[in-house]
């Protein structure tokens, strides 16, 4: 699959990445090359193969329902870009 400018812009938007206008053709070329590499997978028939999501194929371990965390707001918000009254601030969200 070869990606064009519009594809790159659509994907960049979905991933919330600002891409310079001038860089779009470069990305389109690189991403198309990578997809060409990836599409070598199509040479093999996998219709009878179960997907493997995890090398271990183990099952989920469960955690007892206990409160183990304490309030560390001050520490965590010490590295935040913008906070006020304990809240993280972002530009106005329009519903």
């Amino acid at each position, binding site marked *: 699959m070869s990606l064009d400018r519009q594809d790159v812009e659509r994907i960049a938007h979905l991933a919330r990445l600002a891409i310079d206008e001038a860089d779009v053709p470069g*990305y389109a070329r690189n991403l198309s090359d990578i997809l060409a590499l990836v599409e070598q997978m199509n040479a093999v028939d996998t219709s009878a193969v179960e997907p493997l999501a995890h090398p271990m194929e183990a099952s989920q371990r469960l955690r007892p329902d206990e409160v183990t965390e304490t309030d560390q707001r001050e520490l*965590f918000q010490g590295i935040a870009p913008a906070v006020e009254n304990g809240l993280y601030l972002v530009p106005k969200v329009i519903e």
Partner: protein
Amino acid sequence: MHRLTIAEVAGALRRREFSSEELTRALLARIRELDPELNAVITATEEEAMAQAAEADRRLASGEGGPLTGVPILHKDIFCTRGVRTSCGSRMLDNFIAPYDATVVEKLAAAGAVMLGKTNMDEFAMGSSNETSFYGPVKNPWDTDRVPGGSSGGSAAAVAARLAPAATGTDTGGSIRQPAALTGITGLKPTYGRVSRWGMIAFASSLDQGGPMTRTAEDAAIMLGAMAGFDPRDSTSIDRPVPDYTAALDQPLDGLRIGLPREYFGDGLDNDVAACIEGALEVYKRMGARVSEISLPNTHLAVPAYYVVAPAECSSNLSRYDGVRFGYRCQDPRDLEDLYKRSRGEGFGAEVKRRIMIGTYALSAGYYDAYYLKAQKIRRLIRDDFMRAFEEVDVIMGPTSPTVAFRLGEKTDDPVSMYLSDIYTIAVNLAGLPGMSIPAGFAHGLPVGLQIIGNLFDEARLLNVAHKFQQETDWHQQVPGGFE
């Protein structure tokens, strides 16, 4: 002092030949002096290191401590270190002071290791040359015009240049083994789940695994013993006792069955690199090992499948870097959309953006089955290849990398050619297996790595096989010129 291995340092500290404080001070000075040429260290934690060394000396004086007590090490800057910047090689986290320690950091500190600082790396561990770092490329100490490999290139270069006897690394598609090979050191990627991922900044969660980068297999055994173990904070960590990895190092290799995948010796493999591998196999034969050819027929699909699975997971893992709660935030965002797009667009470098976009595309509506699901199926085929092979052989050997270290800038414009430099390492991650790279000679004047792949949880055997080789050879003792 700086040329000693962990095992030697531990003995010297115990014999009071020098103190941990003296050694730590010497290595910090060495980093200050030599690192500007290599750019292997992003942050040196001098004060913390001296405090940890002093504490280690107290414990040693009272007869306490283990093989790592007072031993200075470096951490790849992907491991969170409380109170210390943890950048992951990215502008995005240039201002990120981690509020907690990674389990690996915690465990090594508990074992008494002294943290000298944090090493340079490809941004978010995405790269095979250490050129994608926000902090600039790392140079290979064997030839500073060449790359050290990646993504754990800073750790590899630092250990090779004797800035520290050991460093931690992480390996998602070869990021410990390939730079170890390219810098002439010993690197071990453990079985998936053997080492906790808590506090290790995620690139591709189902592939990432932390491991040691050292000069010898013996040191790797000591490091892994301290790093490995079940962690209730990581659902994918395996609840299984950690053996004493040093116990079996000297087991004879009589009758060891070594498999050589014919797919690892085909087109693209440098002839001189191949000659080194053949030389190494001769050493094993002399020690009584039996070498046979095997086949891993789906090898050629590993890189394609990997470049779906890893970017897909990374595209999601890296969504949390949005400029809201930590990390880089763009100046004066116009609105929420602008905040997201510019913080991420400016905070991430080109390779990270490429991978996020590939992953986003592979997961998007209408493409999931063709890419992600297909890759997961191929992942099973690749794993099954290995499982079949391990019914016949004990370990699999081959080159770690098809070439020696390449020149800085040589592959930066061609991501696909860069990706193919991990052609022999990537399948191991897809299968979750342990793999090592050890020095096996020189080609074109540069180090060559021998890759040893083991069955699940067979780290002790890998270390034994590597250690015996290092008893017979001195490739691992070679020091790059200018760093003696």
